[in-house]
């Protein structure tokens, strides 16, 4: 209270002009302090994305001047046979999302029961989040390899006659990538759900118990509906990760192969630009990726708003 009166008195005594001078100073300081972020993000993020938009309409090898070809650049991209299988791979990746969300959701329920040692379980399950995709990819390659861990597990349980050899076939290699993705996303999604569960008021549970609700009906009638927003968030984050953060995993684990079996859109962009010098096609694909991620993010923003 004394601080309040201390703050109020001099301000009231001050003439009007000095107050507006203060406001001007504040505005100027605000703008000055914004300069670094505008310079950095503007020159190294917004400028290049603008350039990508321009180059997406050109034929360009990165060295000679780009040649404007207009909208036909997009027709060219979509009529490239590899690009169709790339889009197919991205569509197939979406199939991993329900698993990548449902498993951590189930485990978050178990941890949220706060059995003894739940903090340790939480730390352990979240640990892969700290590990580089490069490292994960090395282990995953060894796991799924024909002579790898998976095969020796199969040998160990008497299924040695079966050789899944996932990495040698297009579709099964993508499945191996998807399994690795689910493993790595586990911690992040679990943390999202635990954060969501901690926002639910304990009293709601107590009231439900008093009314005689069992464990399962509490889960389906109370926890799930209240977690809806967090499930949406986990789906969106998993989707964005699958579409735009798996480059290192694919680079080390499968190099996009066999064939184009594990070449996703982001890997295709890298390959077109930096191994085939098709900077124009890569830029066109870059814009397709950007639009995809942007649409997904907009859905998220819309969903958040509609909940209010």
């Amino acid at each position, binding site marked *: 209270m004394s601080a309040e009166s*201390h*703050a109020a008195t001099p301000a009231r005594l001050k003439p009007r002009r000095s107050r507006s001078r*203060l406001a001007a100073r*504040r*505005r100027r*300081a*605000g*703008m000055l*302090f*914004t300069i*670094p*972020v505008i310079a*950095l*993000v503007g020159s*190294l*993020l*917004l*400028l*290049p994305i603008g*350039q*990508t938009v321009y*180059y997406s309409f050109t034929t360009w090898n990165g060295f000679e001047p780009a040649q404007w070809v207009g909208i036909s650049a997009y027709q060219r991209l979509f009529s490239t046979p590899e690009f169709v299988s790339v889009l197919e791979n991205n569509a197939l990746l979406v199939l991993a999302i329900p698993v990548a969300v449902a498993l951590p959701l189930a*485990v978050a329920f*178990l*941890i949220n*029961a706060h*059995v003894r040692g739940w903090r340790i*379980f939480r730390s*352990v*399950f*979240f*640990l892969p*989040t*700290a*590990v*580089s*995709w*490069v*490292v994960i990819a*090395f*282990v995953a390659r*060894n796991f799924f390899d024909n002579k790898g*861990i998976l095969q020796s597990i199969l040998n160990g349980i008497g299924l040695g006659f079966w050789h899944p050899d996932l990495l040698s076939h297009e579709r099964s290699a993508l499945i191996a990538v998807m399994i690795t993705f689910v*493993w790595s996303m586990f911690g992040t999604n679990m943390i999202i759900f635990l*954060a969501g569960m901690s926002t639910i008021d304990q009293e709601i549970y107590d009231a439900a118990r008093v009314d005689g609700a069992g464990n399962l009906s509490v889960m389906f009638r109370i926890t799930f509906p209240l977690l809806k927003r967090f499930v949406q968030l986990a789906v969106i984050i998993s989707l964005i990760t699958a579409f*735009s953060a798996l480059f*290192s995993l694919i*680079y*080390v684990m499968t190099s996009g192969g066999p064939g184009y079996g594990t070449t996703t859109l*982001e890997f295709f962009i890298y390959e077109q630009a930096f191994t085939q010098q098709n*900077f124009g096609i*890569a*830029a066109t694909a*870059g*814009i397709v*990726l*950007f639009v995809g*991620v*942007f649409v997904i993010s907009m859905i998220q923003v819309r969903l*958040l708003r509609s909940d209010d």
Partner: protein
Amino acid sequence: MGWSSRGGAAMWRRSQRSLVYAALLVVTVVMLYPFWFMVRTSLRSLTQYYAGSGYSLTSWHDLFAALPVLRELLNSTLITAGAIVLILAASTTAGYALGTLRYRFSSTVFLVVASAMMVPMQSMIIPEYVNLARLGFINHYYAPILVYAALGTPFATFLLTTYFRRLPEDVIEASLIDGLGYGKIFFRVMLPLAVPAIVTVVVLQFIQIWDDLLVGLLFLQTPQQRPITVGLATIPSQHFLDVPMLMAGSLVSALPAIAVYLVFQRYLIRGLTMGMSK
């Protein structure tokens, strides 16, 4: 009858709890197995690995002979630290300006910077590469430092702006009355108050930058400047199938980020969940 049903309920609860533990233990094995595999395999020579028995430090010797591991760790450290310094410089000032001071267009600036979070790296990396190559920045540390700084700043700005917004306005008023200018308020009052948010940004960015591959792969093409992830991913083909050596290298690369995670996981979790509470 009352007695037996109460005993039955207790037994039901106990068996339920052991089911929960059983499930959690299965997940623990799935999550930790890769780490155990890395450690065990790295402690075997290639022949021991194929034989499936015996232990030695051969692969660790081989790793240090085949790759300039220490140099690469130093490179990773320099790049990560440099980028984090830039990210902090840009995002704390922006957080102060957009969260506390605010001015006519500050919400527009915030919206633009925050939506830059959505730009996937692959969608901007081609012109970025060409621009920086034209400036002659390729194979200099500051190329990846600048790129990582640009990629990390939007989320850091988002985090710090929302953090500063929650600080009471009285803090500024009181400092003004004490005769501080807006610059001094930033350094003497706001920065110390923002330490928890700053630690969160540092931890998140450390893990992200340390673990990244693509930027280093493109912008640093000489072995002397490579970060550890690039060194591993582009390991010379004669070592490509040397699984024990690769596992030793993977461990070296993973350990710093794991250490940061173990010490600061509270901040990491907070950073991740902060994006959710609008």
